């Protein structure tokens, strides 16, 4: 038995502690916004936040996560109102959309660390893969989200 705190809700799951967090989230908790892409922490499609830090959930077991707070794309906001989500819509970023949950989570975390990211910060902070080629719009959306966050605060 493992207890995970996902999006402020506790889930007690009958799984082994060596289960990668990704598969606990997808197969057992049924939150399917977090995606499998590579299984070796290369692509970032499975990015979630653990204690506000971006983590590739395929590479950490539920045992390692312990009782830390996990945020998935579904927990970012109840109504897509997070500034990053709003910026993503305004810039019409997604194409196929498969990598976008991970891109958004990585962007949320980047903006926490760097509220005014330069293009270089974005190059360094956004390592998630996108095969459709949305990178230029991701960049624009991060700058826009940074502006939106200033308006809010």
């Amino acid at each position, binding site marked *: 038995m493992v207890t995970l705190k996902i999006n402020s809700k506790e889930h007690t799951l009958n799984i082994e502690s060596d289960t990668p967090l990704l598969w606990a989230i997808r*197969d057992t908790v049924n939150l399917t916004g977090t995606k499998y892409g590579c299984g070796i922490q290369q692509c970032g499609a499975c990015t979630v936040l653990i204690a506000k830090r971006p983590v590739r959930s395929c590479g950490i077991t539920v045992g390692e996560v312990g009782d830390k707070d996990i945020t998935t794309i579904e927990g970012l906001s109840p109504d897509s109102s997070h500034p990053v989500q709003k910026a993503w819509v305004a810039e019409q970023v*997604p194409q196929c*959309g498969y990598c976008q949950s991970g891109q958004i989570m990585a962007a949320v975390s980047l903006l926490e660390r760097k509220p005014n990211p330069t293009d270089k910060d974005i190059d360094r902070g956004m390592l998630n893969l996108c095969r*459709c*080629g949305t990178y230029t719009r991701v960049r624009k959306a991060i700058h826009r989200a940074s502006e939106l966050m200033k308006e809010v605060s």
Partner: protein
Amino acid sequence: MKNTNMNRRTFLKVTTVAGGGLLVGCSFSSPNSFSSSNEKDGDLGLFVRIKNNDQIQIISPNSELGQGIHTAHAMIICEEMEADWKKVSVTTGSYHPDYKKNMFVQSTGGSNGVSAWKQKLSEIGAGIKEMLIEAGAEQMRVPKKECIALNSFVIHKPSKNSVRFGQIAKNASKLSFPNSPTLKNSSEYKLVGKSIFRVDVPQKVNGKALFAGDIKLPGMMYAQVAQSPVFGGDLKSFDKKSALKSPGVEAVIAIPNGIAIVADTTWHAMKGLKALNPIFGGGINESLSSKTIDKNFNEALNSIKEFSKDNMMLDLEYSMPFLSHAAIESTNCTANVTSNSCEIWVPTQSQSICFDKILEITGLSEENITIHTPYVGGGFGRRIEVDEVVHAVMISKEMNKPVQVLWSREEDIQHDHYHSGSKARYQIKLDAKGLPKQWDNQVVKPDFMAQNYKILDALNFNPFNYLFTPNDSFIPGMIGLQKSPYNIDNVSFDYTNVDSGVPIGAWRSVFIGNAFYIESAIDEVAHFAKQEPLEYRKKLIGDNPRILKILDLLAKQSNWSKPLPPGHGKGIALFHELDAVTAQVATVSVSPKGKLKILKIDCIIDLGNYVNPSIVKSQIEGGIVMGISSALKENIIFEKGKVSQSNFDDYKIAKMKDIPEIEINLIESDADAKGVDMGVFPVAPSITNAIFAATGKRIRHLPIGKQKLV
């Protein structure tokens, strides 16, 4: 615009459904199309469904791979219907003969999702509007010619009375579909031509967009597969006992070319597969390697006639590597096969190829097969193939349970249907003015058309190979391919199919080598003739105002003539196909130590007219990114009969930091063009031509990789 060419059979029969509403559908079967909402209270029509509450569901015959076709198709229908755009949702249809884009297939590929469907979908929208107006007029007891449709209302103009589409849909559905609905003039368009937001984006920013691997069915099992890493190899041994002891494992099942493990979760299946420890051996291609492929290519190239060399002749050789599609959604399929039905959920580009395979495996009758295509996590040509459908259907049939098959990334990279590697040799003779007077093309590559269509193999003929030439042959024209923009009188073409048994398929834009070869060679010839490469191209193009205009606009946009600092260079490349024209300029810098930086890509593209310019631009951007990725780093290597890479750590694709500023401008014309994937073509040659301009170093073999640039 009056359309008089309606030939509908029962195609647009309208029927009433439970709960009311208008169905534009087909009389003999109405497929249960995949629906992300909970609308289960009736069958879906083939293209449009209006519910009593005014919600409109559009069913697109195409898969949404990210290219925005759901939005485009809905815009086309709603434009003619005068529907309220805010009330529209879109899904992809199951397999149905009326969703075929031509005589043969229901598929999403070839960059023709809009061009193949625009007329038909416009007629459907216009026909429904006329039926709604008639029903609305009847309900308001006014003459129908005094009524118009607007924003999902039928309005009686003199009295300003109105009824909602949802109120009259049921009555409208009893009317017959008009024989020749009147279409709008494009000048009257309110939606089409505008960069309105995509219908799928809201679900793609909150995790709710459903992909095939997100499907959960009651009692569903999860399967992982292992296929022979050596092409054509056999399974030699496996430890079934240990696998069955592994937690959650239920079964070990043979599949073509390998073995599958079935468990209660994906993770348990992954662990079970490890415990199963399948060992493969043999294989007809055990000796296959990138070296042997290259050797075979060279032998074929060198067996071709050599021309007498003189000081006005160039003998150029280029090569392109094999490439993987590497869509971020790994190959997968979920199937639920029972004794009398089969339902699958699959990211596919061809429902009809899936359908044919299911028929073959299950022997079920047609009406009991349903193919759901939720959002697809990138297609790029990979998902025309159906290996995973075979796996899922076979395993589900044997288990008598719903089964979700997910290929690990390793399986996905090692069992792709690759963009074929190739080599080209051009022997080009110039006249006294430095213009080509003779151009001989020799191309060797494996041919995916021949792999799939044995007749083409037997005839050693694939018309698409003519795209490698600045051709003037009648054959490309015969099948609708473009004549090269360059006027060269004596062009010959020699193609050899050198097939090493590696599975080959279509990649984004099908095959990108042709643009790299021709646009590199034209650039080399220009420099050899000591002429400015852009002016030289214009000279060869001659009288073609459409293409010349694009080149002039591109020169302006990219500041082509502006002098650059040392170590900087600009390169240009042009491509013309499917009546679309695109030209790009890459601006690069190469440091004294040879480090390459792409500073900007400028692109001008003329695809005729546009349903949604923002989406078109996003597709061109995407093509440019994939072009940069392949030009810089992608290269599938074969060793000892198998692909030596297996994941994103050794098959690297472009990241954010690799992508420069990209500026794209769309040109409108009256060309009947298609090709939203055209962006990818000119990328590699524009970059390598720019490297030459910056350093004098000519890159003739892709990827650029770690080749020395200074």
